[in-house]
C-alpha cells in the first residue's frame, strides 16, 4: 500500500504542474502538487499513487552503496 517507486523524470508540464516519469520502463504521469523543490528532467523522484512525494537524494544513495561496497570488500578478506 505504501509503496513508492523510484522513477526518472522525462518530461515536465508546468501548466498542469505535473511530470511524466519512467518507472523501470513504464511511463506514467505524476502530479508535482506535493513537491516544493524545483525538479529537472533526469532527476529521480519517489512516486506514490500518482504523486511525486520526494526528490531522491542521490548523494545519500551513493554513500549507502559505497558503504555496502566496503562491507563486501571486507567480507572477501
Amino acid at each position, binding site marked *: 500500500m505504501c509503496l513508492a517507486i523510484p522513477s526518472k523524470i522525462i518530461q515536465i508540464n508546468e501548466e498542469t504542474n505535473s511530470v511524466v516519469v519512467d518507472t523501470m520502463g513504464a511511463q506514467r504521469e505524476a502530479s508535482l502538487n*506535493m513537491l516544493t523543490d524545483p525538479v529537472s528532467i533526469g532527476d529521480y523522484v519517489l512516486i506514490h499513487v500518482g*504523486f511525486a512525494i520526494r526528490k531522491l537524494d542521490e548523494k545519500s544513495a551513493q554513500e549507502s552503496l559505497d558503504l555496502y561496497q566496503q562491507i563486501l570488500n571486507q567480507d572477501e578478506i
Partner: protein
Amino acid sequence: MKSERITLKQIIEGFRNPETVRALSKEINREAEKLQREVNIMEVCGGHTHIIAKYGLTQLIPENIKFIHGPGCPVCIMPKERIDHAVILAEKSDVILVTLGDMMRVPGSQRSLQESRSHGADVRFVYSPLETLKIAKENADKKVIFFAIGFETTTPMTASLIQEVGKKNITNLLFHINHVTVPEPMEAVLQTEGSKIDAFIGPSHVSVIAGAKIYKPIVDKYKIPVVISGFEPVDVMQSTLMIVKQFNEDRRDLEIQYTRGVTFEGNIKAQEMIKEVFDIAEKFRWRGIGDIPNSSLKLKEKYDNLNAEKIYHLPHESIEDHKSCRCGDILTGKALPVECKVFGKACTPDRPMGACMVSEEGACAAYYRYGRGLTNQKVLT
C-alpha cells in the same frame, strides 16, 4: 574528470544485491553473538513484512533475533463495519464508489466490494485518487464517493483531491475517510499486556511524508530503538544491523537508514495539506486491536457537505471477526500466522477469514505465499 551520475538501475539493483544481503547477514550474526538478550524487532509496515517474507530474511538472521509483524497495513486493520459502509454505499443505485485497488477483496460482514461489483454495483478502482475527478465530471447525474484508505503516505493525496474539488467547483464528489496514523498503534502495541517488542523498524514512505520526528516521542518515552528503513532487502538487513548495534552499544535511538528518502522534518507541504483538510478523530477501531485514541483523521467541519458519513445513514455497531481468526494476536505480535488454527486450512488468500490473509502485505498472506522463506521463524508463544 566529469563525475558520472548514478543511474536509477544502479540504485535499485544496489539495494537488492544478494551479495550485500549475505554480507550484512554475516555482520548481523557477528554482532548478535555479543547480545546479552533476545531482541524482538517489530517491522511496523506491511510492505516490510512482504519484503521479509519474499526474500526469506528470517533465515538470514540468528536465533536470538526475531521479526514480529506489525499492524502497518491499512487494509488489514480496517474493521468490518467500515468495509460494510463501502458496500452499502456502493450498492446505492445513484452511487459510483471509487477506491484504491487494495480494498477490492477485503471481506465485510456480508461481502466484499468485488462481490458487490459482480452483483451490479458500480465500484471502480483507481491507481491515483486524482482519477476520481474525471469520473465525477463524466457522471454528473451520479454521486461519486471516494472511499479513502491509507496511512500518512496516502493521506495528502486525498487532501489534494479534496482541495481540487473546491477549486473546480465539483458538486457530486463525496468522501468516506479512513485515514489512520502510525505512531499511535506503535504505542498501543507497546502497551499491550505481554508485549515482547524491543525495537521497531520504522516505515519508509510514511516517514518520507511525516518525517522521522513523529517517532521521537516513542523513543524518548519508552527508551526503544526506532530505525526507519528503506523498502528493499538490503535496507531491511542494514536496519536490523543498526538495531543490534544499538543494543550492543547500550543506545536506544531514533535513526534513519533510509537516508535517500527520509529527513527528520519530512515533506512539510504534504503535512500542511493534511492539516488544512483534516482534524484528528477521537478514536478509530483497529481490527484486532480495538479502539486507539487519536489514531485516525476526519474531515474538518467546513467540509461537512462532502462528508459521506454525515450525509448517509450508516451503521456504526462493531462487528467482530470469526472467533477462530487470530488476526488481532498477529497484529500485536503475540502470535505468528502459523500458530493460528485456521491458517492455510479454512483461511486462505482465496477464501480469507480475516484481513491479515487478504492484503499482500498482511502477515498471513505473506506467510502463505512465501512459506519457504519463513520456515526458520521461531514460534513466539
